[in-house]
């Protein structure tokens, strides 16, 4: 009789599996919290942050809707695409920012020095380089 009582029944297994699944899901949610990927864009001292997962968001930096930087006379088109960010065009004299490769890893940056535009990644893909 006692052994019979201690033996796990089919219903017990169902409950155990159910509990384990819930715990694993909760833990995964906890681990993933605050790990989004963002791109910070700074123009004329103002910073705005966009999610890297928003595909094909094209920002005209001198567009009033995005940044009120029209008085600075600068134009920088920043494209966020498939988790990558690049400078599509710019009206700066050196065009260094346009030649820069796409960025996606934490800490990577594209700087347009003449226009004072900074594009910077904050994310969970580690960068091998610290500077």
């Amino acid at each position, binding site marked *: 009789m006692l052994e019979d*009582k*201690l*033996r*796990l029944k089919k219903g*017990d297994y169902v*409950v*155990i599996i159910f*509990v*384990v699944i819930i*715990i*694993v899901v909760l*833990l995964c949610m*906890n*681990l993933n919290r605050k790990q989004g990927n963002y791109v910070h864009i*700074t123009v004329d001292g103002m910073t705005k942050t966009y999610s890297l997962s928003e595909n094909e968001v094209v920002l005209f930096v001198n567009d009033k809707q995005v940044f009120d930087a029209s008085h600075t006379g600068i134009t920088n088109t920043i494209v966020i695409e498939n988790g990558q960010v690049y400078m599509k065009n710019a009206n700066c*004299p050196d065009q*260094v920012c346009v*030649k*820069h*490769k796409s*960025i996606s890893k934490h*800490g*990577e*940056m*594209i*700087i347009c*020095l003449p226009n*004072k535009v*900074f594009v*910077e990644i*904050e994310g969970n893909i580690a960068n*091998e*380089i*610290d*500077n």
Partner: protein
Amino acid sequence: MRFIARHRKFFNVTIAIVCILLFSFFAIRTITSGGHEVRTQVYTGIAMGTAIKKTIYAEDITVSDRVDKMIDETLQELENQISVRKNNSEISKLNSSYVTGGTNKLSDNVLQCLEVEIQVWRETEGAFSPCIYPITSLWGIEEGLAEIPDEALLQERILSSDANNIEVVEDGIILNQENMAIDLGAVGKGLACDMVKEQLMQTEIRGAVVSIGGSILAYGDKGDGKDWHIGIQDPRNQTGEVLGIIDVDGDVVVSTSGDYEKYFELDGKRYHHIFDPITGYPADNGLISVSVVSDSGLLSDALSTACFVLGLEEGMNYVQEKGVEAVFVTSDMNVYVTKGLKKKFRLKSDEYTLVK
């Protein structure tokens, strides 16, 4: 109680699984965060005519914010003091109003800077000059000019750029030639790194990487006990790719001088912003980039410029004499590193060959 007793085994199993999961979860968290919750904060901006990037490792974000502001103030102050582009700077005032043969009082940090520069000038037999501004300003490459200056005018400027005419006296200098102009541009960013380092030592932050143009300060540690990985810019690929990575422990400055920052091209030849004080022309000794690793930012900045002018062989001898480490990149795409960096430098670009 009867319920628990009846399902005792079930409860035991469930509790065991929960414990194992919780334990592994916290174990993973602790390992990945190195035991402490160290936050990385990145700040960007422009100062001293160049891009600034600060990565600050601190346990509290308000501390990082405070340190960021502190560094900005220091850089602004230094720029106001030494910039040749600000009319009111100590250096500009000296250049515009000195009297030949008269004593000019200078601040301690400017004087200390000049003394290091004069030493490098002497040791390199003139490959480096603390008063090269007459040549630099005649070419005007940083201002966007793109032509070779008049030869007679250049010869005059070469005479004015001779550091033989600088005499260091107590708390100041004497300039013994007309139309001279001191320019701390070749060491300003390295000096800034030294000043930032001093400042960081007064704070509770555990680590930081501060890039001031071509000079990079690695300070303290990341919290994981590992080396800092400092990327060296690929001198022939302007897309942000690195040539290689130098692993350094805390508290060093890596300064790089290259022909890729500001230049113009004429008849297939590149005219860049690092001048040979003796010829008055952009240095042309087969190098396209030199990086110098030193405890002193001032020295690393001065030596990277000096070695760029000296060329591979003399530059290599000179850095060994000075006891600092360096990476030389030649125009035939070969990379040479000093002995102390053999194990710490990793080539990342396959366009170049690392010479063993």
